[in-house]
């Protein structure tokens, strides 16, 4: 049977893509951020997951307001990035695992999650930046991917409780897959930031640190945060914390924190990185 070995979190700020392209790892602005990743690389080298479920939020590439899904699950053979409006270079596609995607989709719909299945899905920086951060050389150990996206563009966004429950159901689905494979779940985006309005530039270290603490041992406490309270405390785009909740739900009740890093600011954002290992 498939095993979920753990979860990784990271912010997925577009500027990180540029910094990687320019190899700014030791630049004083970037060093405190990139210093969080060698410990993740070590954990990945030790555990070598076969599949990565990448939970992210589309920022206006794959989905527009004409058809805005609450939860979408990729079911394609491969996933390609595309121009998001700034002439971003097109990368090699990321190989998918559609058989496992469909297994998850079957389970989710059976358990009353009303997902949108995506047999073709261009992926944006929310997906590619985490992949670049965790598997910078795209070597043979890079896992096959299943992108999962939640709506943070158009209110109403899903509740934190629904996001967590979505993750729990998805974790059950993965663990019921008959192959002996190792799966890692990525929760990407956040932490606190706000791009729009007179409050642009809002960052909330206390709230971010509380979230990073609670998500380890008491994620259920976080499900009680209201959606508007989340906007108020994490900033308008800090709602991306929903992706972390989905990831956390998939890991099971008990997890161990392997490593973490938090740094303000990267671009407009409080950036958090974690490795959470699932109990065997």
């Amino acid at each position, binding site marked *: 049977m498939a095993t979920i070995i753990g979860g990784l979190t990271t912010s997925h700020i577009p500027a990180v893509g540029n910094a990687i392209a320019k190899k700014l790892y030791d630049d004083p602005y970037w060093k405190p951020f990139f210093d969080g990743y060698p410990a993740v690389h070590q954990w990945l080298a030790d555990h070598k997951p076969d599949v990565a479920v990448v939970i992210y939020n589309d*920022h*206006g*590439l794959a989905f*527009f*307001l*004409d058809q805005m899904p609450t939860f979408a699950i990729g079911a394609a053979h491969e996933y390609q990035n*595309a*121009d*998001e*409006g*700034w*002439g971003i270079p097109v990368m090699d596609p990321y190989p998918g695992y559609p058989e496992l995607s469909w297994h998850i989709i079957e389970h989710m719909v059976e358990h009353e999650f009303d997902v949108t299945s995506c047999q073709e899905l261009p992926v944006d920086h929310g997906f590619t930046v985490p992949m670049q951060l965790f598997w910078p050389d795209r070597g043979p150990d890079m896992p096959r991917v299943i992108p999962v996206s939640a709506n943070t*563009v*158009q*209110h*109403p966004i899903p509740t934190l409780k629904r996001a967590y429950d979505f993750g729990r159901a998805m974790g059950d689905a993965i663990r019921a897959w008959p192959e002996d494979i190792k799966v890692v779940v990525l929760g990407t985006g956040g932490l606190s930031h*706000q*791009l*729009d*309005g*007179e*409050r*642009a*530039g*809002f*960052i909330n*270290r206390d709230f971010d640190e509380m979230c990073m603490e609670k998500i380890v041992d008491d994620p259920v406490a976080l499900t009680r945060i209201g959606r*508007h309270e989340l*906007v*108020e405390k994490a900033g*308008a*785009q800090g709602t991306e914390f929903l992706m972390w909740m989905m990831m956390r739900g998939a890991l099971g009740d008990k997890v161990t924190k392997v490593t973490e890093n938090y*740094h*303000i*600011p990267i*671009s*407009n954002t*409080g950036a958090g990185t974690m490795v959470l290992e699932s109990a065997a």
Partner: protein
Amino acid sequence: MEQAPFDHHVSIPGTTLFDGRQAMKGYQLNKMCYSFNDGDNRAAFKADPEAYMTKFKLTDPQKEAVRSLNVLKMIEAGGNIYYLAKLAGIFGLSVQDVGAQQTGMTTDEFKEKLLAAGRK
């Protein structure tokens, strides 16, 4: 039939929740900005912004906000920041330039404000 009040709109200072009310107002503006994922569309807009805006049926307040490149006015006219960021990109504006404009700072002041948040 009169238009009923829309009950789900909440108020957070300095923040416009992009909910149904905003979405109804902003659809054409957001649709235009979404089209900028395509380089040919960006070129067409740059070549003739007025014609491009008319093609997407922008309202007058939306057109005026785009002409003056005023992000707060775009938001007021129903723009969503994720789509507006693509418009801003055409003018070479980063999210920090956009943040500075909205908060009445220079971009350097805005960046310094963010660095200060890191020192707290």
